[in-house]
């Protein structure tokens, strides 16, 4: 796999890395903020895609995101844990929850798992609303600005996490895990027969996905300085997590990244034009992709540009 890197690709990656490291010096603060939120969304999109590689559609990533967010915020509130360690703990707790939930429900057929994940995120939202003494209830929790409000440092942290996610996805693609995940997605019974334990791999994928989603949740809570249950456990986040990679193209490294960039641009435009309901684009995109472009933007690009 490593040998398959062409020289052009290596040069492109080096230039991209230099640009991304230099970027905070070039961008104005508002654009830097947009980039941070876009990177956060890319992390969510790529980690959703990791689980999707096993054929499982999670509609409740907000549950894991919210757990990460609240873990980081609560650890800060209780013991003033350093934010980065708090985010890491958020990731770890999300992994533990995913291991538990996944072991119980990932042996079920796909659609049951999807329904369980929605129920899981909504249940967490109710629990958080009903326990104001423990976790702030509907009023939410607030934390001081991350790195004293230094956006550049926040940018480098989220960039590092994004790089780690992409490295993880690349490793999954380059190793035998890719075969296991693909076999399970294509046909679970056959995968079982050839010696792959579907549930074990699905739980593994769910745990990897959960770590990054939880870490991202922790980052969000410190970066945003304020979280409420309706938002961090909300359907909006779960939907964003799945529409971005599906739009970009599933089971690819570039797909979730490209999907996120395009959708964030559309969303930013809609946010200033309509006051409510800017997620309408997500619904529309989902319908259009399923009906007309099952391989997403990456697939469309391959079909129209490469095969010309």
């Amino acid at each position, binding site marked *: 796999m490593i040998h398959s890197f062409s020289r052009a690709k290596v040069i492109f990656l080096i230039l991209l890395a230099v640009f991304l490291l230099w970027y905070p010096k070039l961008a104005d603060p508002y654009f830097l903020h947009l980039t941070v939120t876009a990177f956060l969304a890319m992390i969510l999109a790529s980690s959703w895609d990791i689980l999707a590689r096993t054929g499982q559609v999670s509609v409740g990533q907000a549950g894991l995101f919210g757990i990460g967010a609240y873990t980081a915020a609560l650890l800060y509130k209780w013991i003033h844990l350093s934010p980065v360690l708090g985010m890491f703990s958020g990731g770890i707790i999300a992994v533990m929850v995913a291991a538990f939930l996944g072991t119980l429900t990932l042996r079920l*057929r796909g659609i049951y798992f999807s329904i369980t994940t929605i129920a899981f995120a909504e249940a967490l939202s*109710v629990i958080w609303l009903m326990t104001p003494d423990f976790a702030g209830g509907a009023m939410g929790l607030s934390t001081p600005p991350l790195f004293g409000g230094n956006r550049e440092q926040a940018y480098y942290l989220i960039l590092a996490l994004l790089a780690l996610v992409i490295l993880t996805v690349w490793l999954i693609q380059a190793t035998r895990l890719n075969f296991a995940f693909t076999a399970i997605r294509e046909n679970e019974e056959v995968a079982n027969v050839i010696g792959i334990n579907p549930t074990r791999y699905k739980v593994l994928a769910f745990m990897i996905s959960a770590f990054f989603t939880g870490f991202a949740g922790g980052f969000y809570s410190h970066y945003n300085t304020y979280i409420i249950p309706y938002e961090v456990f909300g359907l909006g986040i779960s939907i964003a997590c799945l529409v971005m990679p599906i739009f970009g193209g599933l089971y690819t490294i570039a797909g979730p990244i490209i999907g996120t960039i395009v959708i964030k641009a559309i969303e930013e435009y809609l946010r200033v034009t309509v006051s409510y*309901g800017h997620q309408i684009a997500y619904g529309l995109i989902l319908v259009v*992709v399923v*009906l007309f472009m099952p391989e997403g933007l990456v697939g469309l690009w391959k079909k129209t540009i490469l095969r010309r």
Partner: protein
Amino acid sequence: MDWASFFQSFANGLLIAGLYAAVTLGLTLVLGVMGIVNFAHGEMVMLGAYNTFWLCTLLKVDPLASIAASGLLLFFVGLFIYRFTIRPILTDPPLNQLLLTLGISIFLQNLAMILWKTDSRSVITSYSGMSLHLGLVHVGLTRLLTFLIAVGLTIVLVLFLYKARSGRAMRAVSENNTASWLIGINVQRTYLLAFGVAAGLAGASGALVSTIMYTYPMVGFKIGLKAFCILVLGGLGNIPGALLGSLILGLTESFVGTYVPEGSGWAEGISFILIMIILIIKPTGLVGTRRE
């Protein structure tokens, strides 16, 4: 034990169960006949509720009289959705169908937010505040009427499925669509009709929802999740299971609301907890077997 509050909770749970059943029937019908879990079902309920709200607010139509209007409107919306989105992906993997209907659901939720804002609206009628005393319990007139209408809708659906020619075709297709096709049933048309009837039921139950709950863009999502819970409780795709599931959810919510401190808040989470417990312990549902 305070029997008055026990019976009161029981009555409240029973009445709300009727509404849940009406909402779940359409979902059950589509799942049973076509094998599709329609995530947009709740949103069709929401559209029915808004239709009733606007008819009542703008034209002063009695909400219970507009049930037919909401049902008919959503019947045609259902035909449209089926023809242009569901039909092309009938043979796709179930997850594609899930994503498609989820997309429709998100689209309709946000469309409602754009058109009607996120305000919670309620329908008020001349008989809204009236209630009846039946022995130990007080029953709101609107709730009783919605319950009776929901029961009526259920009976009509069952009669349709067992007596009408096209209803029997639906049952045949749900048993085995290839065999149904072989004996000359138009499977495509049966699917179309089943989806339309399910959407119509959603619209009619939306009218009921608007009379006893607030109408807002996410109401369909909330009640749709409850319908999923009922579906899972009852075993997927069978009507007796859906009725039993409705009863269990309605009563559990009502008793939790009465007997648990701050219960009405917790009751909102019951359906989610039940979904997880049932799927983990007995994935085939409480009644019947799982469809493959």
